[in-house]
């Protein structure tokens, strides 16, 4: 009986905590929107900073009417490509750098050099090589996402518990299989952390690249609405891409929890 009571109390208190969590999570957004509403018309003229509700209505309209769906899809397509390439190259590079010294020496310098470089600084040059289409945007996303993925994979593979490697060895795992059987699975949680860090970076890099040079995509739309002075639509597109990024990160976290049942 008392057990039942305490269980019920537990449910209630987690319910209350859940509501509290939701409030805390969305409160900042509410405050920002409130400030935005206040600033619009009071601090800045409405034509330059339209009120949030107007922006939201336009954002919904842009999506529902299909006006920016094409650009959104182009941008997402570029992100998927850039991110996938970065995952493919980054994981292999990071893990091999951690386990093979010459590879570490060879790529280490390269990595240190591109680390502090703002990837968008490459856009003007990349346009000359790849044109102002998807190639440039994908390259920038790829480079921006590569580092967190390489670094996390590297750290993960380097810090694999020696006893795990030894226990595999004593059970007959050859040095050649050690990578696949032990090093990679042991490193997976941290590798996934690196990918999670790369997802929002991909959005930042993409929009920056498209703002500088593109003929399609979300960044291009932001820029062109801005140049035309249609600021409601410009802000609306920013809202749409922010939401897309949010959904992307959340979606990834969901996949992550499913993959990592054992952690």
């Amino acid at each position, binding site marked *: 009986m008392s057990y039942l009571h305490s269980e019920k109390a537990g449910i209630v208190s987690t319910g209350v905590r859940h509501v509290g969590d939701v409030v805390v999570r969305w409160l900042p957004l509410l405050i920002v929107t409130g400030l935005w509403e206040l600033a619009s018309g009071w601090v800045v003229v409405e034509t330059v900073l339209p009120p949030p509700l107007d922006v939201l209505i336009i954002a919904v309209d842009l999506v529902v009417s299909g006006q920016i769906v094409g650009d959104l899809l182009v941008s997402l397509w570029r992100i998927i490509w850039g991110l996938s390439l970065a995952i493919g190259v980054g994981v292999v590079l990071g893990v091999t750098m951690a386990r093979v010294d010459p590879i570490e020496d060879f790529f280490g310098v390269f990595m240190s050099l591109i680390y502090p470089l703002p990837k968008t600084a490459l856009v003007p040059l990349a346009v000359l090589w790849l044109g102002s289409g998807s190639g440039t945007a994908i390259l920038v996303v790829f480079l921006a996402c590569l580092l967190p993925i390489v670094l996390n994979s590297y750290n993960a593979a380097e810090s694999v*518990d020696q*006893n*795990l490697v*030894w*226990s*595999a*060895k*004593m*059970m*007959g*795992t050859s040095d050649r299989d050690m990578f696949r059987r*032990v090093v990679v*699975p*042991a490193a*997976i949680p941290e590798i996934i952390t690196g990918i999670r860090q790369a997802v929002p970076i991909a959005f930042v890099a993409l929009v920056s690249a498209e703002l500088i040079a593109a003929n399609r995509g979300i960044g291009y739309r932001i820029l062109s609405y801005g140049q035309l002075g249609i600021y409601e639509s410009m802000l609306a597109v920013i809202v749409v891409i922010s939401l897309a990024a949010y959904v992307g990160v959340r979606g990834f976290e969901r996949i992550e929890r499913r993959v990592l*049942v*054992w*952690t």
Partner: protein
Amino acid sequence: MNEGRVIASNVEKVYRSERTPTTAIEDLSFEVGDGEFFSVVGPSGCGKSTLLYLIAGFLDVTSGMITVNDHAVEGPGTDRGVVFQDYALFPWKTVMGNVTYGLAENGVPKDERRETAQHFIDTMGLDGFEDTYPKELSGGMKQRVGLARTLAYDPKILLMDEPFGALDQPLREALQDNLLDIWRELGKTVVFITHDVEEAVYLSERVLIMTRHPGTRKQVIDIDLDRTQDREAIITSEEFTETKNEVWRSLREETKHTV
């Protein structure tokens, strides 16, 4: 013949990784017979674990030699199985996955793998936990998996590195008795590292006492207990107390030397 004899002759181990080389083990010789339960005790930092890793082939001797069945140890092999203090289970594999791993690596067919693994899972009292991941298990359960996984691929020699060191007393005793049953039934050679004198005396036929730093052989004490009795009778017997005190005295001398 598949025997489990271990011979260490004039083993020296020097770690050179740091600027000044440290001698962990110096001029250490001993012999462990086939099917023997042999414990190693010594003050902390005496190189007990290093010794075990040398026998396992994880580390190389600097000079001297370790042989297993007259073959010099040149690396890890499936004739020896290590049970680690921190369990070293694969966290991404279930209990079943961990226990079948060694069998899979040695080409045992799938059905047979599961059957053998199930046998040792049952032996260690882990039935019902086949599909559980290690993170969900208590320390005692994890070490049961550690033992089951090592027994499954049937090494002749068990090398145990303070395997029960992190467990509380009742669990420790339960696992000690489990281990004794297994040892008797399967006739494995056991090299058991511990800092617990009572554990060493209770379990083993002989105890090697190592000196402090650098570790070398101080003394090997024979333990003669009537093992047909139960735990209670053994630990209250005069022989048990006497042997324990003898080991204690020897160890205490060691600690006094350097403090």
